[in-house]
Protein backbone atom coordinates (compact mmCIF):
# COMPACT_ATOMS: atom_id res chain seq x y z
CA UNK A 1 0.00 0.00 0.00
CA UNK A 2 1.32 3.44 -0.89
CA UNK A 3 0.52 6.46 1.22
CA UNK A 4 0.67 10.09 0.19
CA UNK A 5 2.82 12.35 2.32
CA UNK A 6 -0.43 14.05 3.41
CA UNK A 7 -1.68 10.76 4.78
CA UNK A 8 1.62 9.84 6.35
CA UNK A 9 1.90 13.17 8.09
CA UNK A 10 -1.63 13.14 9.54
CA UNK A 11 -1.44 9.46 10.44
CA UNK A 12 1.82 9.96 12.29
CA UNK A 13 0.68 13.09 14.08
CA UNK A 14 -3.09 13.52 13.90
CA UNK A 15 -4.13 17.09 14.62
CA UNK A 16 -7.31 16.59 16.60
CA UNK A 17 -7.33 13.12 18.05
CA UNK A 18 -9.02 12.44 21.32
CA UNK A 19 -12.26 13.49 22.96
CA UNK A 20 -13.51 16.25 25.22
CA UNK A 21 -14.05 15.43 28.87
CA UNK A 22 -17.57 14.25 29.39
CA UNK A 23 -19.06 17.46 30.81
CA UNK A 24 -17.40 19.93 28.49
CA UNK A 25 -19.83 22.73 27.64
CA UNK A 26 -21.21 23.03 24.13
CA UNK A 27 -19.94 19.68 22.92
CA UNK A 28 -22.00 17.38 20.72
CA UNK A 29 -20.97 13.86 19.86
CA UNK A 30 -21.65 11.81 16.76
CA UNK A 31 -20.62 8.27 15.85
CA UNK A 32 -20.70 5.95 12.89
CA UNK A 33 -19.32 2.49 12.15
CA UNK A 34 -19.18 -0.15 9.46
CA UNK A 35 -17.91 -3.51 10.50
CA UNK A 36 -17.57 -4.75 6.95
CA UNK A 37 -15.33 -1.80 6.14
CA UNK A 38 -13.49 -2.06 9.45
CA UNK A 39 -14.20 1.47 10.59
CA UNK A 40 -15.63 3.09 13.70
CA UNK A 41 -15.46 6.85 14.21
CA UNK A 42 -16.66 9.34 16.80
CA UNK A 43 -16.49 13.12 16.61
CA UNK A 44 -16.76 15.55 19.51
CA UNK A 45 -17.68 18.99 18.19
CA UNK A 46 -17.45 22.03 20.43
CA UNK A 47 -19.59 24.95 19.38
CA UNK A 48 -19.66 28.54 20.58
CA UNK A 49 -21.82 31.28 19.15
CA UNK A 50 -22.91 29.05 16.27
CA UNK A 51 -19.33 28.48 15.20
CA UNK A 52 -17.31 25.30 15.47
CA UNK A 53 -14.67 26.09 18.03
CA UNK A 54 -12.87 22.73 18.10
CA UNK A 55 -13.34 19.15 16.90
CA UNK A 56 -11.86 15.97 18.28
CA UNK A 57 -12.09 12.47 16.80
CA UNK A 58 -11.58 8.88 17.84
CA UNK A 59 -11.23 6.17 15.29
CA UNK A 60 -10.61 2.50 14.69
CA UNK A 61 -9.56 2.12 11.11
CA UNK A 62 -6.95 2.40 8.47
CA UNK A 63 -4.36 5.17 8.06
CA UNK A 64 -6.37 6.83 5.32
CA UNK A 65 -9.40 7.09 7.57
CA UNK A 66 -7.30 8.54 10.38
CA UNK A 67 -5.77 11.10 8.05
CA UNK A 68 -9.16 11.99 6.59
CA UNK A 69 -10.70 12.48 10.04
CA UNK A 70 -7.78 14.63 11.07
CA UNK A 71 -8.01 16.78 7.95
CA UNK A 72 -11.75 17.21 8.35
CA UNK A 73 -11.32 18.34 11.95
CA UNK A 74 -8.81 20.96 10.82
CA UNK A 75 -11.13 22.21 8.09
CA UNK A 76 -14.15 22.45 10.34
CA UNK A 77 -12.65 24.68 12.99
CA UNK A 78 -14.00 28.18 12.85
CA UNK A 79 -16.79 27.20 10.45
CA UNK A 80 -20.50 27.68 11.12
CA UNK A 81 -22.28 24.64 12.50
CA UNK A 82 -23.96 23.86 9.21
CA UNK A 83 -20.54 22.99 7.79
CA UNK A 84 -20.91 19.66 9.62
CA UNK A 85 -23.34 18.66 6.91
CA UNK A 86 -21.37 20.10 4.09
CA UNK A 87 -17.97 18.44 3.97
CA UNK A 88 -16.74 18.15 0.39
CA UNK A 89 -15.63 14.54 0.37
CA UNK A 90 -14.13 14.82 -3.10
CA UNK A 91 -11.90 17.59 -1.90
CA UNK A 92 -10.80 15.56 1.14
CA UNK A 93 -10.06 12.54 -1.03
CA UNK A 94 -8.14 14.76 -3.40
CA UNK A 95 -6.08 16.46 -0.72
CA UNK A 96 -5.03 13.12 0.71
CA UNK A 97 -4.72 11.34 -2.61
CA UNK A 98 -6.93 8.53 -1.32
CA UNK A 99 -7.27 5.36 -3.38
CA UNK A 100 -10.84 4.80 -4.61
CA UNK A 101 -11.29 1.63 -2.58
CA UNK A 102 -11.16 3.83 0.53
CA UNK A 103 -14.04 6.13 -0.49
CA UNK A 104 -16.59 4.01 1.35
CA UNK A 105 -14.91 4.87 4.61
CA UNK A 106 -15.24 8.58 3.84
CA UNK A 107 -18.99 8.13 3.67
CA UNK A 108 -18.97 6.65 7.16
CA UNK A 109 -16.93 9.60 8.39
CA UNK A 110 -19.52 11.88 6.87
CA UNK A 111 -22.20 9.89 8.67
CA UNK A 112 -20.52 10.62 11.99
CA UNK A 113 -20.49 14.34 11.21
CA UNK A 114 -24.14 14.22 10.26
CA UNK A 115 -24.81 12.52 13.56
CA UNK A 116 -23.17 15.48 15.28
CA UNK A 117 -25.32 17.83 13.27
CA UNK A 118 -28.40 15.90 14.29
CA UNK A 119 -27.27 15.95 17.90
CA UNK A 120 -27.19 19.70 17.72
CA UNK A 121 -30.92 19.37 17.75
CA UNK A 122 -31.57 22.41 15.60
CA UNK A 123 -34.88 22.86 13.89
CA UNK A 124 -33.46 24.05 10.57
CA UNK A 125 -34.12 21.97 7.45
CA UNK A 126 -31.00 19.88 6.89
CA UNK A 127 -31.10 20.05 3.12
CA UNK A 128 -31.20 23.82 3.26
CA UNK A 129 -28.23 23.77 5.64
CA UNK A 130 -26.33 21.48 3.35
CA UNK A 131 -27.00 23.78 0.43
CA UNK A 132 -25.51 26.81 2.14
CA UNK A 133 -22.64 24.72 3.49
CA UNK A 134 -21.83 23.68 -0.08
CA UNK A 135 -21.53 27.32 -0.97
CA UNK A 136 -19.18 27.82 1.96
CA UNK A 137 -17.04 24.90 0.89
CA UNK A 138 -16.76 26.14 -2.65
CA UNK A 139 -15.48 29.46 -1.47
CA UNK A 140 -13.24 27.69 0.97
CA UNK A 141 -11.37 25.44 -1.45
Amino acid at each position, binding site marked *: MNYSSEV*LQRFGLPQADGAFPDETEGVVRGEAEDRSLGIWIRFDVQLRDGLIRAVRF*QLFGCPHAIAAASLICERLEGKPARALAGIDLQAVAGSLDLPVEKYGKLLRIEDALLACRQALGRSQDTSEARKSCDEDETKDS
Partner: protein
Amino acid sequence: MSARPLYLDNAATTAVDPEVIAAMTACLGTDGSFENPSSAHPGGARARQLVEDARERIAALVNAQPGEIVFTSGATESNNLAILGSFDADPRSRKHFVTTRIEHHSVVDTAHALEARGVEVTRLDCDAKGVVTTGQVLDAITDATALVSVMHVNNEIGVIQDIEAIAQACASRDVRLHVDAAQSAGKIPLDLGGWGVDLCSLTAHKAHGPKGIGALYVAGGVTLAPQLHGGEQERGLRAGTLATHQIVGMGKTFELARPERDGPRLAKLRDRLWRGLGEIEGIRLNGCRERCAPHILNVCFAGIEGESLRLALADIAVSAGSACASDDPEPSHVLSSLGLSDALAQSSLRLSVGRFTEPADVDRAVERIGAEVARLRALADGAPAWCST
Protein backbone atom coordinates in the same frame (compact mmCIF):
# COMPACT_ATOMS: atom_id res chain seq x y z
CA MET B 1 20.27 5.00 21.18
CA SER B 2 21.76 3.52 18.03
CA ALA B 3 20.45 4.50 14.62
CA ARG B 4 20.72 0.92 13.44
CA PRO B 5 17.39 -0.02 11.85
CA LEU B 6 15.41 -2.60 13.75
CA TYR B 7 15.29 -5.80 11.74
CA LEU B 8 12.91 -8.36 13.18
CA ASP B 9 12.02 -10.07 9.92
CA ASN B 10 14.52 -12.92 9.85
CA ALA B 11 11.84 -15.38 8.81
CA ALA B 12 11.43 -13.40 5.58
CA THR B 13 15.13 -13.37 4.91
CA THR B 14 18.39 -12.81 6.73
CA ALA B 15 21.55 -10.77 6.33
CA VAL B 16 24.35 -12.89 4.95
CA ASP B 17 27.10 -13.80 7.41
CA PRO B 18 30.43 -12.07 6.67
CA GLU B 19 32.19 -15.45 6.42
CA VAL B 20 29.65 -16.53 3.83
CA ILE B 21 30.14 -13.31 1.87
CA ALA B 22 33.88 -13.90 1.86
CA ALA B 23 33.46 -17.47 0.63
CA MET B 24 31.09 -16.35 -2.12
CA THR B 25 33.26 -13.48 -3.29
CA ALA B 26 36.18 -15.88 -3.68
CA CYS B 27 34.22 -17.62 -6.45
CA LEU B 28 33.52 -14.61 -8.60
CA GLY B 29 36.49 -12.67 -9.91
CA THR B 30 39.37 -13.47 -12.25
CA ASP B 31 41.49 -14.48 -9.27
CA GLY B 32 38.77 -16.74 -7.89
CA SER B 33 37.06 -20.00 -8.75
CA PHE B 34 34.79 -18.46 -11.35
CA GLU B 35 35.03 -21.34 -13.80
CA ASN B 36 32.12 -23.50 -14.84
CA PRO B 37 32.01 -26.53 -12.51
CA SER B 38 31.06 -28.64 -15.53
CA SER B 39 34.22 -27.70 -17.42
CA ALA B 40 36.83 -30.39 -17.90
CA HIS B 41 39.85 -28.13 -17.35
CA PRO B 42 41.58 -27.79 -13.98
CA GLY B 43 39.75 -24.55 -13.16
CA GLY B 44 36.46 -26.34 -13.77
CA ALA B 45 37.63 -29.23 -11.60
CA ARG B 46 38.48 -26.83 -8.78
CA ALA B 47 35.05 -25.26 -8.98
CA ARG B 48 33.51 -28.73 -9.06
CA GLN B 49 35.43 -29.61 -5.93
CA LEU B 50 34.09 -26.52 -4.18
CA VAL B 51 30.59 -27.56 -5.17
CA GLU B 52 31.16 -31.05 -3.80
CA ASP B 53 32.61 -29.69 -0.57
CA ALA B 54 29.52 -27.54 -0.14
CA ARG B 55 27.30 -30.53 -0.83
CA GLU B 56 29.07 -32.43 1.92
CA ARG B 57 28.60 -29.68 4.45
CA ILE B 58 24.94 -29.32 3.68
CA ALA B 59 24.45 -33.07 3.90
CA ALA B 60 26.28 -33.13 7.21
CA LEU B 61 23.93 -30.60 8.83
CA VAL B 62 20.81 -32.57 7.98
CA ASN B 63 22.23 -36.08 8.39
CA ALA B 64 22.20 -36.99 4.73
CA GLN B 65 24.65 -38.38 2.22
CA PRO B 66 26.21 -35.82 -0.13
CA GLY B 67 24.74 -37.71 -3.08
CA GLU B 68 21.28 -37.06 -1.67
CA ILE B 69 21.57 -33.27 -2.05
CA VAL B 70 20.36 -31.69 -5.32
CA PHE B 71 20.96 -27.97 -5.74
CA THR B 72 18.07 -25.76 -6.83
CA SER B 73 17.35 -22.04 -6.93
CA GLY B 74 15.62 -22.11 -3.53
CA ALA B 75 13.00 -23.86 -1.47
CA THR B 76 10.26 -22.72 -3.85
CA GLU B 77 11.87 -24.70 -6.66
CA SER B 78 12.67 -27.57 -4.30
CA ASN B 79 9.01 -27.80 -3.27
CA ASN B 80 7.90 -27.76 -6.91
CA LEU B 81 10.47 -30.38 -7.89
CA ALA B 82 9.65 -32.65 -4.97
CA ILE B 83 5.91 -32.57 -5.50
CA LEU B 84 5.55 -32.41 -9.29
CA GLY B 85 8.60 -34.63 -9.72
CA SER B 86 7.09 -37.29 -7.46
CA PHE B 87 3.79 -37.43 -9.30
CA ASP B 88 5.47 -37.39 -12.71
CA ALA B 89 7.68 -40.30 -11.66
CA ASP B 90 5.17 -42.37 -9.75
CA PRO B 91 5.36 -45.85 -11.24
CA ARG B 92 1.77 -46.58 -10.29
CA SER B 93 0.48 -43.19 -11.55
CA ARG B 94 -1.31 -42.67 -8.26
CA LYS B 95 -3.33 -39.49 -8.09
CA HIS B 96 -3.77 -38.46 -4.47
CA PHE B 97 -1.77 -35.88 -2.56
CA VAL B 98 -2.00 -35.21 1.17
CA THR B 99 -0.84 -31.90 2.58
CA THR B 100 -1.92 -29.32 5.17
CA ARG B 101 -3.76 -26.02 5.07
CA ILE B 102 -0.82 -24.11 6.49
CA GLU B 103 1.89 -24.81 3.94
CA HIS B 104 3.95 -22.15 2.21
CA HIS B 105 2.52 -20.73 -1.02
CA SER B 106 4.98 -22.76 -3.05
CA VAL B 107 3.33 -25.94 -1.78
CA VAL B 108 -0.19 -24.50 -1.79
CA ASP B 109 0.09 -23.36 -5.40
CA THR B 110 1.82 -26.54 -6.53
CA ALA B 111 -1.09 -28.47 -5.05
CA HIS B 112 -3.41 -26.36 -7.20
CA ALA B 113 -1.28 -27.19 -10.22
CA LEU B 114 -1.64 -30.88 -9.36
CA GLU B 115 -5.41 -30.51 -9.17
CA ALA B 116 -5.40 -29.01 -12.64
CA ARG B 117 -3.71 -32.25 -13.73
CA GLY B 118 -6.37 -34.39 -12.16
CA VAL B 119 -4.72 -35.16 -8.84
CA GLU B 120 -6.99 -35.19 -5.81
CA VAL B 121 -5.65 -33.13 -2.92
CA THR B 122 -6.48 -33.63 0.75
CA ARG B 123 -5.65 -30.60 2.88
CA LEU B 124 -5.38 -31.34 6.57
CA ASP B 125 -6.67 -28.79 9.04
CA CYS B 126 -4.51 -27.79 11.95
CA ASP B 127 -5.82 -27.21 15.46
CA ALA B 128 -6.10 -23.76 17.02
CA LYS B 129 -2.42 -23.83 17.82
CA GLY B 130 -1.33 -24.84 14.34
CA VAL B 131 -0.59 -28.50 15.00
CA VAL B 132 -1.37 -31.33 12.59
CA THR B 133 -1.38 -34.82 14.07
CA THR B 134 0.02 -38.08 12.82
CA GLY B 135 -3.44 -39.55 13.15
CA GLN B 136 -4.78 -37.03 10.67
CA VAL B 137 -2.07 -37.96 8.21
CA LEU B 138 -2.76 -41.67 8.59
CA ASP B 139 -6.48 -41.16 8.18
CA ALA B 140 -5.95 -39.22 4.98
CA ILE B 141 -3.72 -41.74 3.26
CA THR B 142 -5.47 -43.98 0.74
CA ASP B 143 -4.26 -46.55 -1.76
CA ALA B 144 -4.08 -43.75 -4.30
CA THR B 145 -1.77 -41.56 -2.20
CA ALA B 146 1.56 -40.99 -3.91
CA LEU B 147 2.91 -38.29 -1.62
CA VAL B 148 2.42 -36.56 1.71
CA SER B 149 3.87 -33.08 2.16
CA VAL B 150 4.05 -31.50 5.61
CA MET B 151 6.22 -28.54 6.48
CA HIS B 152 8.60 -28.73 9.41
CA VAL B 153 8.42 -25.18 10.77
CA ASN B 154 5.62 -22.91 9.65
CA ASN B 155 6.95 -19.64 8.28
CA GLU B 156 4.23 -17.48 9.81
CA ILE B 157 3.60 -18.86 13.27
CA GLY B 158 6.71 -20.98 13.77
CA VAL B 159 4.86 -24.09 14.88
CA ILE B 160 6.94 -27.25 14.59
CA GLN B 161 5.28 -30.39 13.27
CA ASP B 162 6.40 -33.77 14.56
CA ILE B 163 8.12 -34.85 11.37
CA GLU B 164 9.73 -37.90 12.89
CA ALA B 165 6.36 -39.36 13.86
CA ILE B 166 4.77 -38.36 10.57
CA ALA B 167 7.65 -39.97 8.66
CA GLN B 168 7.09 -43.18 10.60
CA ALA B 169 3.42 -43.07 9.83
CA CYS B 170 4.06 -42.55 6.12
CA ALA B 171 6.63 -45.32 6.05
CA SER B 172 4.14 -47.66 7.72
CA ARG B 173 1.80 -47.04 4.81
CA ASP B 174 4.56 -47.10 2.22
CA VAL B 175 3.85 -43.53 1.18
CA ARG B 176 6.54 -41.03 0.34
CA LEU B 177 6.96 -37.98 2.62
CA HIS B 178 8.16 -34.55 1.53
CA VAL B 179 9.07 -31.96 4.17
CA ASP B 180 9.54 -28.24 3.62
CA ALA B 181 12.32 -27.36 6.04
CA ALA B 182 13.06 -23.89 4.68
CA GLN B 183 12.51 -22.32 8.10
CA SER B 184 14.04 -24.97 10.31
CA ALA B 185 17.42 -25.81 8.80
CA GLY B 186 20.14 -24.31 10.94
CA LYS B 187 17.85 -23.53 13.85
CA ILE B 188 16.45 -26.94 14.75
CA PRO B 189 18.40 -30.19 14.36
CA LEU B 190 17.33 -32.08 11.26
CA ASP B 191 17.91 -35.81 11.14
CA LEU B 192 16.56 -36.57 7.69
CA GLY B 193 18.33 -39.89 7.41
CA GLY B 194 17.30 -40.99 10.89
CA TRP B 195 13.71 -39.87 10.59
CA GLY B 196 13.22 -41.55 7.24
CA VAL B 197 12.13 -38.49 5.32
CA ASP B 198 12.09 -39.07 1.54
CA LEU B 199 12.32 -35.52 0.23
CA CYS B 200 13.18 -32.30 2.03
CA SER B 201 13.38 -28.72 0.77
CA LEU B 202 16.15 -26.48 2.05
CA THR B 203 17.12 -22.90 1.39
CA ALA B 204 20.12 -20.78 2.34
CA HIS B 205 18.66 -17.32 2.79
CA LYS B 206 16.69 -18.01 5.96
CA ALA B 207 19.90 -19.00 7.73
CA HIS B 208 22.24 -16.11 6.89
CA GLY B 209 23.11 -17.39 3.46
CA PRO B 210 22.40 -15.96 0.00
CA LYS B 211 19.01 -15.80 -1.67
CA GLY B 212 18.46 -17.76 -4.87
CA ILE B 213 20.07 -21.02 -3.80
CA GLY B 214 18.48 -24.01 -2.18
CA ALA B 215 18.56 -27.75 -2.24
CA LEU B 216 16.30 -30.73 -2.34
CA TYR B 217 17.23 -33.72 -0.23
CA VAL B 218 16.34 -36.80 -2.25
CA ALA B 219 16.82 -39.90 -0.13
CA GLY B 220 18.72 -42.73 -1.77
CA GLY B 221 16.43 -44.78 -3.97
CA VAL B 222 13.78 -42.10 -4.33
CA THR B 223 13.09 -41.43 -8.01
CA LEU B 224 11.97 -38.06 -9.30
CA ALA B 225 11.16 -36.65 -12.72
CA PRO B 226 13.21 -33.52 -13.39
CA GLN B 227 11.21 -30.36 -13.88
CA LEU B 228 13.94 -28.35 -15.57
CA HIS B 229 15.30 -29.91 -18.75
CA GLY B 230 18.74 -29.64 -20.35
CA GLY B 231 22.18 -30.61 -19.21
CA GLU B 232 23.29 -33.43 -17.01
CA GLN B 233 23.96 -31.37 -13.92
CA GLU B 234 22.81 -32.76 -10.57
CA ARG B 235 22.49 -36.31 -11.89
CA GLY B 236 20.02 -35.10 -14.48
CA LEU B 237 17.60 -33.96 -11.79
CA ARG B 238 18.20 -30.24 -12.22
CA ALA B 239 19.68 -28.68 -15.34
CA GLY B 240 21.46 -25.35 -15.47
CA THR B 241 25.00 -24.10 -14.93
CA LEU B 242 25.90 -24.62 -11.28
CA ALA B 243 26.24 -21.27 -9.56
CA THR B 244 29.47 -21.94 -7.68
CA HIS B 245 29.38 -18.84 -5.51
CA GLN B 246 25.81 -19.50 -4.49
CA ILE B 247 26.45 -23.13 -3.72
CA VAL B 248 29.64 -22.32 -1.83
CA GLY B 249 27.67 -19.67 0.05
CA MET B 250 25.03 -22.21 1.02
CA GLY B 251 27.73 -24.68 2.03
CA LYS B 252 29.38 -22.11 4.28
CA THR B 253 25.98 -21.14 5.68
CA PHE B 254 25.22 -24.70 6.66
CA GLU B 255 28.75 -25.20 7.96
CA LEU B 256 28.41 -22.16 10.24
CA ALA B 257 24.94 -23.15 11.44
CA ARG B 258 24.87 -24.89 14.81
CA PRO B 259 21.27 -25.61 15.72
CA GLU B 260 22.25 -26.78 19.23
CA ARG B 261 23.92 -23.44 19.89
CA ASP B 262 21.97 -21.04 17.65
CA GLY B 263 18.51 -22.37 18.49
CA PRO B 264 18.73 -21.68 22.23
CA ARG B 265 20.26 -18.25 21.62
CA LEU B 266 17.41 -17.31 19.28
CA ALA B 267 14.85 -18.72 21.68
CA LYS B 268 16.22 -16.51 24.45
CA LEU B 269 15.80 -13.44 22.27
CA ARG B 270 12.33 -14.48 21.27
CA ASP B 271 11.39 -15.09 24.89
CA ARG B 272 12.74 -11.67 25.85
CA LEU B 273 10.57 -10.20 23.11
CA TRP B 274 7.53 -12.07 24.31
CA ARG B 275 8.14 -11.04 27.92
CA GLY B 276 8.33 -7.40 26.85
CA LEU B 277 5.32 -7.48 24.55
CA GLY B 278 3.39 -9.55 27.07
CA GLU B 279 3.03 -6.41 29.17
CA ILE B 280 0.82 -4.95 26.45
CA GLU B 281 -2.83 -5.47 27.26
CA GLY B 282 -4.89 -7.62 24.96
CA ILE B 283 -1.95 -9.14 23.17
CA ARG B 284 -2.18 -12.78 22.16
CA LEU B 285 0.23 -15.30 20.78
CA ASN B 286 -0.70 -16.94 17.49
CA GLY B 287 0.49 -20.52 17.35
CA CYS B 288 1.89 -22.78 19.95
CA ARG B 289 4.14 -21.64 22.76
CA GLU B 290 5.39 -25.18 23.43
CA ARG B 291 6.16 -26.20 19.86
CA CYS B 292 7.50 -23.08 18.29
CA ALA B 293 10.67 -22.53 16.28
CA PRO B 294 13.16 -20.45 18.22
CA HIS B 295 13.15 -17.48 15.89
CA ILE B 296 9.48 -16.75 15.25
CA LEU B 297 6.89 -14.92 17.34
CA ASN B 298 3.49 -14.17 15.88
CA VAL B 299 1.31 -11.91 17.98
CA CYS B 300 -2.13 -10.43 17.64
CA PHE B 301 -2.94 -6.91 18.85
CA ALA B 302 -6.68 -7.12 19.28
CA GLY B 303 -8.45 -3.78 18.91
CA ILE B 304 -5.90 -2.28 16.56
CA GLU B 305 -6.67 -2.08 12.90
CA GLY B 306 -4.10 -4.05 10.93
CA GLU B 307 -3.13 -1.56 8.29
CA SER B 308 -2.64 1.20 10.83
CA LEU B 309 -0.62 -1.13 13.03
CA ARG B 310 1.69 -1.93 10.16
CA LEU B 311 2.12 1.66 9.07
CA ALA B 312 2.74 2.81 12.64
CA LEU B 313 5.56 0.29 12.90
CA ALA B 314 6.85 0.77 9.37
CA ASP B 315 10.26 1.71 10.70
CA ILE B 316 10.64 -1.71 12.29
CA ALA B 317 11.13 -4.48 9.79
CA VAL B 318 8.46 -7.00 10.72
CA SER B 319 5.94 -8.93 8.67
CA ALA B 320 2.21 -9.13 8.58
CA GLY B 321 1.67 -12.66 7.48
CA SER B 322 4.56 -13.78 5.33
CA ALA B 323 6.74 -11.52 3.23
CA CYS B 324 5.78 -13.23 0.02
CA ALA B 325 2.23 -12.08 0.49
CA SER B 326 3.01 -8.63 1.78
CA ASP B 327 1.52 -6.81 -1.19
CA ASP B 328 -1.55 -8.90 -0.79
CA PRO B 329 -4.26 -7.50 1.48
CA GLU B 330 -5.84 -10.93 1.91
CA PRO B 331 -5.63 -12.22 5.47
CA SER B 332 -3.05 -14.95 5.93
CA HIS B 333 -4.32 -18.43 5.13
CA VAL B 334 -2.31 -19.73 8.06
CA LEU B 335 -3.86 -17.42 10.64
CA SER B 336 -7.30 -18.13 9.22
CA SER B 337 -6.60 -21.83 9.68
CA LEU B 338 -5.98 -21.18 13.37
CA GLY B 339 -9.51 -19.81 13.51
CA LEU B 340 -8.66 -16.11 13.67
CA SER B 341 -11.18 -13.69 12.22
CA ASP B 342 -10.01 -11.69 9.24
CA ALA B 343 -9.70 -8.63 11.48
CA LEU B 344 -7.57 -10.39 14.07
CA ALA B 345 -5.43 -11.93 11.37
CA GLN B 346 -4.91 -8.44 9.98
CA SER B 347 -3.98 -7.17 13.45
CA SER B 348 -1.22 -9.74 13.78
CA LEU B 349 2.49 -9.27 13.32
CA ARG B 350 5.27 -11.76 12.82
CA LEU B 351 8.48 -10.82 14.58
CA SER B 352 11.49 -12.98 13.90
CA VAL B 353 15.00 -12.82 15.33
CA GLY B 354 18.28 -13.86 13.81
CA ARG B 355 22.00 -14.21 14.34
CA PHE B 356 22.50 -10.45 14.21
CA THR B 357 19.67 -9.55 16.57
CA GLU B 358 20.90 -8.19 19.89
CA PRO B 359 18.98 -8.03 23.18
CA ALA B 360 19.04 -4.23 22.87
CA ASP B 361 17.25 -4.49 19.51
CA VAL B 362 14.55 -6.53 21.15
CA ASP B 363 14.17 -3.98 23.94
CA ARG B 364 13.91 -1.08 21.49
CA ALA B 365 11.34 -2.96 19.47
CA VAL B 366 9.27 -3.64 22.59
CA GLU B 367 9.39 0.04 23.46
CA ARG B 368 8.41 1.20 19.98
CA ILE B 369 5.66 -1.35 19.60
CA GLY B 370 4.36 -0.55 23.08
CA ALA B 371 4.23 3.14 22.28
CA GLU B 372 2.46 2.76 18.94
CA VAL B 373 0.01 0.25 20.27
CA ALA B 374 -0.81 2.60 23.14
CA ARG B 375 -1.29 5.50 20.71
CA LEU B 376 -3.58 3.58 18.38
CA ARG B 377 -5.48 2.08 21.31
CA ALA B 378 -6.06 5.55 22.72
CA LEU B 379 -7.26 6.74 19.33
CA ALA B 380 -9.75 3.87 19.20
CA ASP B 381 -10.84 4.25 22.81
CA GLY B 382 -14.54 3.65 23.04
CA ALA B 383 -14.74 1.57 19.89
CA PRO B 384 -17.35 -1.18 19.82
CA ALA B 385 -16.48 -4.74 20.74
CA TRP B 386 -16.33 -6.00 17.18
CA CYS B 387 -13.14 -4.00 16.68
CA SER B 388 -11.35 -6.43 19.01
CA THR B 389 -12.67 -9.71 17.66
